[in-house]
């Protein structure tokens, strides 16, 4: 009886794995194809009929990409901008979410509704007013121009708000009775207990910031300030005659930090997303 039950469980697991494998392959295939092309020689890339795997792994395209554009600078800019945006969004979201979920004050519901409401506004709507504001401050083509408009996130506040709400009130009261201040409770209890959600949101914020295209495109003019995504676009437009292999190599280098970040933290990311009840 027990073994039949185990067999059935195992069978169900296999079916579930196979069903999930298909969308996973569809998602991963472009990335895999990108890597394969980046490892091919020039003639191999355009051969017909096309072949998926390279004859041999070649690093030539990577050397070419690094030599023809300041990729490391783009990577550095993206890393600086994405890290600062992530830090700022985490900081503001943690404080705002805690205040909205734990403190009682007048207009609390309205403030929350307003914050949730910002999630309904498409990012493009704010581009022009933000551009003029930053231009009037002479901030264009600077790091603050890339960071400050994204230092708070309605989604982040909403996401962490839901998580903080699940922390039992008695835990806070017990700490409060022992002489713990609200701020200490936030950093000593609420943050450690919400680490999966905070990590998940951190990765989400970092990837979002890393992948930004439109805003850096209109606010930066020099390669000293341009980010990886602009770099890829620029790379293509300036090197139309260039081999796809080189473009794919450049792309592989520019997306590698976010892919590695996700691989390193995927357990926390999935835990945070599933615990909060929000699915991407």
């Amino acid at each position, binding site marked *: 009886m027990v073994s039949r039950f185990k067999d059935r469980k195992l069978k169900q697991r296999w079916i579930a794995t196979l069903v999930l494998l298909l969308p996973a392959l569809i998602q991963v295939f472009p990335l895999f194809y990108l890597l394969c092309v980046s490892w091919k020689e020039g003639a191999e890339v355009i051969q017909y009929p096309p072949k998926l795997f390279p004859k041999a792994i070649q690093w030539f395209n990577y050397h070419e990409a690094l030599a023809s554009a300041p990729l490391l600078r783009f990577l550095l800019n993206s890393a600086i901008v994405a890290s600062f945006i992530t830090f700022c969004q985490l900081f503001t979201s943690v404080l705002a979410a805690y205040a909205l979920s734990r403190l009682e004050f007048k207009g609390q519901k309205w403030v929350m509704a307003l914050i949730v409401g910002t999630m309904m506004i498409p990012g493009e709507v704010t581009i022009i007013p933000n551009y003029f504001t930053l231009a009037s401050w002479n901030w264009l083509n600077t790091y603050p121009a890339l960071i400050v408009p994204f230092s708070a996130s309605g989604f982040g506040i909403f996401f962490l708000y839901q998580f903080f709400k699940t922390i039992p009130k008695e835990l806070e009261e*017990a700490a*409060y*009775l*022992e*002489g713990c201040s609200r701020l200490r409770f936030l950093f000593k*209890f609420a943050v450690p207990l919400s680490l999966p959600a905070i990590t998940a949101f951190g990765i989400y914020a970092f990837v979002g910031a890393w992948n930004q295209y439109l805003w850096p495109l209109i606010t930066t003019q020099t390669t000293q300030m341009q980010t990886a995504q602009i770099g890829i676009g620029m790379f293509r437009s300036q090197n139309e005659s260039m081999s796809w292999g080189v473009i794919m190599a450049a792309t592989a280098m520019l997306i590698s930090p976010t892919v590695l970040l996700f691989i390193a933290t995927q357990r926390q990311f999935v835990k945070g997303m599933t615990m909060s009840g929000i699915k991407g």
Partner: protein
Amino acid sequence: MASVEIDRVKKQFGDIEVLKEVSLSIRSGEFVVLVGPSGCGKSTLLRMVAGLELPSAGNIAIDSQDVTTMAPKLRGVAMVFQNYALYPHMTVRDNLKFGLELAKVDKKEIGRRVNEAAEVLGLSAHLDKKPGQLSGGQKQRVAMGRAMVRQPKVFLFDEPLSNLDAQLRVKMRTEISHLHRRLSATSIYVTHDQVEAMTLADRIAVMYQGKLEQVGSPLELYQNPKTKFVASFIGTPSMNFLQGELLQSLKGNVQASSAGVRPEHTFLANTGQGECVFLGKGQIVLVEPLGSLAYIHVRIHDHYLVSELKSDRFPHAGETVEFMITIL
């Protein structure tokens, strides 16, 4: 040890008045249980003593010092919560010493108090475990230990046993009782379980609809309830109230509009002792055997009564029996 003085305390949440001028004096070292049905205001009253809620009116004093608006940490109280409220990411040791570290108690002293509390509560082997690795009873002991190490003037217990199974509840009840005798600390204990109240309390304060119905020793409340609510709330099974035809069967013995009869004061005909009165013939609708005794649910003239019978043979459901009651 400290006395607690609750003086005409009121609490309103919006339009709802949850506490209506409650006054209660608790002597130093006394174990007082606040008991009552859900929503009667007992937890609110406890939370006001703790400083987690502010009274809408009235005063609270601990050790003759007015603490009505004082911050909880300055009141010298420690609270044990219903769901333990242990810090899940900290070890038992860290849970126990957290409050002491905040109070900047000397490290050696912290170690001494933590070890002593762990020994008393049988937690020495679990000090490096996290709460998630403990059983319900162990978690509750940690919660008590956390209160103990702070050496508070007043211990507050908010339904601390209601998350435990019946067997463990009895065990923990005994442990709380031993602990109280050992520490002789002033304790206020909230529960809706009147058995807990009866077994633990020096005095019980029965609350109903935001008011104190009666305060007294467990036996005083059981034997001389001042209100119908106290009479019905204290005692298991609840007291029967005789009205209408049943009351008439008592004839000259009772003048009131209803009369209360404890289940243990009812008998099958001819088995009673002392002065008995015939109540009537009734049909047994349910028998709940508990070993040496049974609760018999009887219908007499469309009234339902519960009787506690001690016997080695109990009647069966559906039987018609004659019932008598003892007149005290």
